[in-house]
């Protein structure tokens, strides 16, 4: 399997506690910067009805979809509803930049 590492630019582009959507190729990926300092990356579109997860409220490693409040675990991708989960990506901070692996 081949993986690509991408620098998404300064971590300061995401305000603390917020998420932001990045277009990688034609994939939308939501990156979150939790108040605790943790970074998370998951697919941006909610498996339920396509809600934009990067707009969701986060905390304690979870995001709430803005459309119908389904919840997803940012680390595992597990969803609050049966049969719903999202893809997770590896993301970390490197010298003040966000580095994503896809």
């Amino acid at each position, binding site marked *: 399997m*081949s993986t*690509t590492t991408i*620098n998404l630019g300064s971590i300061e582009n995401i305000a603390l506690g917020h998420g932001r959507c*990045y277009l*990688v190729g034609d994939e939308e990926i939501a990156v979150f910067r939790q108040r605790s300092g943790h970074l998370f990356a998951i697919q941006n579109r909610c498996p339920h009805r396509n*809600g934009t997860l990067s707009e969701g*409220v986060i*905390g304690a490693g979870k995001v709430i979809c803005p459309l119908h409040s389904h919840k997803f675990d940012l680390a595992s991708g597990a*969803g609050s509803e049966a049969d719903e989960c999202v893809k997770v990506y590896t993301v970390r901070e490197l010298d003040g930049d966000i*580095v994503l692996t896809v």
Partner: protein
Amino acid sequence: MNQNKTKLVVVGNGMAGARVVEEILKRASDRFEIVMFGAEPYGNYNRILLSNVLNGSQAASEIFMNPLAWYRDNGIKLHAGVRATRIDRQRKVVIGAPLEKDALAYAADAAAVPDAALIEEPYDHVIIATGSRPFVPPMEGFGGPGTFLFRTLDDCDQIANYAKTCKEAAVIGGGLLGLEAARGLLTHGVEVTVLEAAPQLMIAQLDFESGKMLRDTMEGMGIQVMCEKITTKIVYDDGRIRRLDFKDGSTLETDMVVVSAGIRPITEIAAASGLTVNKGIVCDDQMRTSDRDIFAVGECVEHRHKLYGLVDPIWDQAKTLADVITGFNPKAEYLGSRLGTKLKVMGVELASMGDTKPSLPDDEVIVYSEPSRGVYKKMIVRENQIAGAILLGETDTAGVLMQMFMTGAAVPSRRADLLFGTSSGMPVLSVFDLPDHAQICNCNGISKGEIKEAIVIGKCHSVSKVGACTKAGLGCGSCKVLVAQLIEAYAGEVDDDPTEDYYVPGVPLEKAQLVAEIKRRGLKSVSAVFRELAGDKEDPGSKVGLASLLKTLWPGEYDDERDARFVNDRVHANIQKDGTFSVVPRIYGGVTSPAELRRIAEVAEKYNVPMVKFTGGQRLDLLGVKKDDLPKMWKDLGIPSGHAYTKAFRTCKSCVGTDFCRYGVGDSIKLAQEIEHRFQGIESPHKMKLATAGCPRNCSEAYVKDLGAVAIEGGKWEIYIGGAAGGSVRKGDLLCTVATHADVLKYMGRFMQYYREHGKYLERTYGFVERIGIEPLKMILVEDSEGICARLDAEIQKAVDAYKDPWKEAELPAYPGQFNGPELAHALELAENNG
């Protein structure tokens, strides 16, 4: 008196005594003539919930399980405030003495009313359920002013009252109850220190490691903890406590002391009557004492050399006793219980069951420790069953673990699932597989069958409804997860229930307490609330509700962390199902002008807005807008935000009023504009939609709005509140009739402020007005029965003054990326890994 009935006398009217009577009535509702002696002057209440009473999250009146009417309805004669002193086994009578009004019910020397006639009740059977009393370790000076125990409603009352006069309090005993008492004291505004004799907290339920972490957590909440402190003396000065002296020579200054250092069974009556008493009243497996006609149940019992201090074993004992005494199952046996419990301290998640340390060579120990977050999880597996477990900091799986521990179920091969949940999110334990008699709520002894019935037949589809119907989940609360799973299993879906007790799910406080704590500690940001009141756990489902509350509590001063807002409030627009937004400019009172309309039309064209629609609130909605375009459109529009996206004052629509209408008797347009100018952007528990009507024909539907003003003959205005015409339809209630526009604004503002302060999050005004009642509201808001009107008026004025048009952020975004759509990722640094 009925000669045919068996005479049953129950001594002790606490949790065990009342429960055993309930169990007996279930099996044989009219075979017994029942008499109860209770030293406390009340019906039976839920002692477990005293911790909540002390910390203010429940009123004393809420914890009664058997109110006096219950005794009456079941034909039970209750001697409340009477202590049974002896059982005359020759004459077969129980003898009791009425206690003085302020006697300490559980004291060995509780003062009886002098010269009062003794009460005698003949019996065929006696059940002793006297419970226990707090144990006071040997020390000099206990019993003076400012020293307390923690066992009864009266104790709670006295502790709370005395705390008002104190700056510092000490709790002797760092066990379950001591910590709950300490947390309770904290809410009364005193500095609290817990003194524990052992080297760690909760030695019965925790190992050293978790004990240490719990100590850090408690200290983080502002409770001082001192271990290995043995108090030898309480030193007084001028009728008040001055300090405590410890065995190691050190001292601690304090104003009051609560002792919670264990319990001892109350056995005097058994001993005085010649029954076998060891540490407790000795019973066999059928709960019989050494006299065949006398049984015992609860904390006063010693069964197979064991004493129990939790309610779960008591439920089992009560069932066995009832089976035996009614002959329902004469061979029933109680064989002992496994113990599990949860600490009910706000802001601390802790569950513990069984062994805390391995004891056999083959015991398997699974430990996970994350000190930085105060999370510790440990499980001891013996012969493929759970022999013990500790969950600290995160207790999501506690309910399942407890079930498996209690039932001795085989554990899954992936042990981690039991501590963290499965990675697929599938439940470890299918609630379908549990038998109907499996006990789900250990605090109140509620089985799966009873809960299932409440869900399927009683149509209770939320955890709180199931609780209201069965009492499940109303004790320590650790079974709520299982109750939710049962609802999912049998009803498909758990209903959201805005009447859940907590204001938001992640901070275990009702609104009034939450507000009090926020004010007392001066918490001005959502993260500060999580830090101080929720053990630093940032629950995403609570952020939005907290943000709204804080903004209401600290107008102008609130530290507005934008990540706590729902997306609509971050970008000041309503998110649509395709991820686009809608823009609704404010149109005061529904009156616009050709110039304004032209501008709106131009903006709609310029940004290719796919749909322009009139809203129900007499304004225009531009739908399908991309996030990036929002600030540009607002600038081009030059009209303030209509707040169509948030929990706040929305609009005030109006009819044509007096200017052009043939019937109008009041200037509804002008009034609507005044209202909208004044209250625009005022946040509230839920949205508020308003209207003014120029006459009672109600063209603008003012009767069915959250607030409505209707003009009547004589130039007067009627103010209606709590109307609704959405999913629910309700005509508003008349609050008052006033003469001027200024008065309409005054009373509307007053109501809004009261609703802002007392409404539950997401409670619309129609629910709120129904909950409080229109008559009380009139008293409070019109008659000023609570003397708060001047303050309400001042608070709403502050909120009005703090209004800022959020669309002004178009000029200067509040945080990076506020109005940015997806960012194109540039592969700045590419590295291919093959692996």
